[in-house]
């Protein structure tokens, strides 16, 4: 009998690719945001509204991740923004290898901001580094108050949290007070933006914060050279 010690990270292959992606993105001074949520939280609508606000101010690209269909990519394309669709065909998350291939397929690889819309899932995407600058989590008031405590890792890892469908708040039992209290325990530092992709409510604050991040990234890149 022989024992072979490995001490090898099971996600090591992904993490190596994520580091390569991060270096490529940093070299171009672009901000990369990994957008994550459960299915039906309104991620794509929020992304469309975000694009409306940003167009003309900065250059954009989008990588869309879905199990099947290119419906989301077509919605983004209609906005006149370059987009590549990834179909995971059953896989529950995007990985760094998928992102590097998709990025190579964008028509223009120089941009200020790249959005990666992850597969709708609050569990697995939290584990897979894509080479992004930060994770943004979207949840909607219609999903109920229990989401942060049931999926703590993804909320813990987020740099920013978007509470969507605020226009539906009066029709739900969602408690903003409890939401704030739960986040105090899980992620006390992430800013929370209360928005509605449908009505545009709260978008200005989110856009201002996001543009600040884009500028910060650009400044970092200038300093490095």
């Amino acid at each position, binding site marked *: *009998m*022989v024992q072979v*010690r*490995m001490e*090898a990270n*099971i996600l090591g292959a992904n993490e190596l690719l994520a580091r390569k992606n991060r270096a490529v993105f940093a070299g171009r001074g672009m901000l990369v945001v990994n957008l994550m949520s459960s299915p039906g939280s309104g991620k794509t609508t929020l992304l469309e509204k975000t694009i409306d606000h940003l167009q003309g101010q900065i250059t954009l690209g989008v990588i869309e991740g879905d199990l099947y269909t290119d419906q989301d990519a077509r919605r983004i394309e209609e906005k006149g923004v370059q987009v590549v669709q990834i179909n995971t065909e059953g896989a529950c998350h995007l990985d760094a290898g998928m992102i590097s291939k998709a990025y190579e397929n964008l028509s223009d690889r120089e941009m200020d901001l790249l959005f990666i819309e992850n597969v709708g899932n609050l*569990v697995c995407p939290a584990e897979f580094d894509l080479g992004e600058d930060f994770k943004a989590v979207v949840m909607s008031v219609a999903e109920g108050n229990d989401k942060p405590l049931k999926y703590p890792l993804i909320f813990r890892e987020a740099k920013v949290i978007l509470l969507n469908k605020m226009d539906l708040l009066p029709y739900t039992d969602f408690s903003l007070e409890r939401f704030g209290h739960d986040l105090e*325990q*899980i992620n006390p530092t992430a800013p929370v933006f209360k928005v509605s992709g449908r009505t545009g409510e709260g978008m200005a604050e989110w856009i201002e914060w996001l543009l600040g991040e884009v500028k910060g990234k650009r400044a970092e890149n200038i300093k490095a050279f």
Partner: protein
Amino acid sequence: MHEFSLIEGVLNMVRDSASQNNIGKVNRVKLVVGRLSMALPDSLHFAFEAICKDEDLFREAILEIEEKEIMCDCLACQRSSELKDIYSFICPACGSNRIEITQGRELYLDYYEGEEVNGAGSNGG
């Protein structure tokens, strides 16, 4: 949800290493899994058994999983404690939310055990 692909990754690492080390049969594979990783031990066992029975190298292999508790260092009171509730990142000693997770995100292949192929230099298995 992605336990099958995790196990496939583990078996790929073991298969490569076994062929380099002239090991023809794997008896045991040991993983370390933190409670804060998104991999569930039961699902890992299920995936391991399902995949291993189709391959001679792994047919009789046993999966052992060591689970790691979630540990944190508190930036307020400087104490180290175990976090029992996965959904509450609060220092159990002083109640501060300014903590750093020091253990619990592990997800690695610790070691495997196997039997060497009889006869030095043989590549068979």
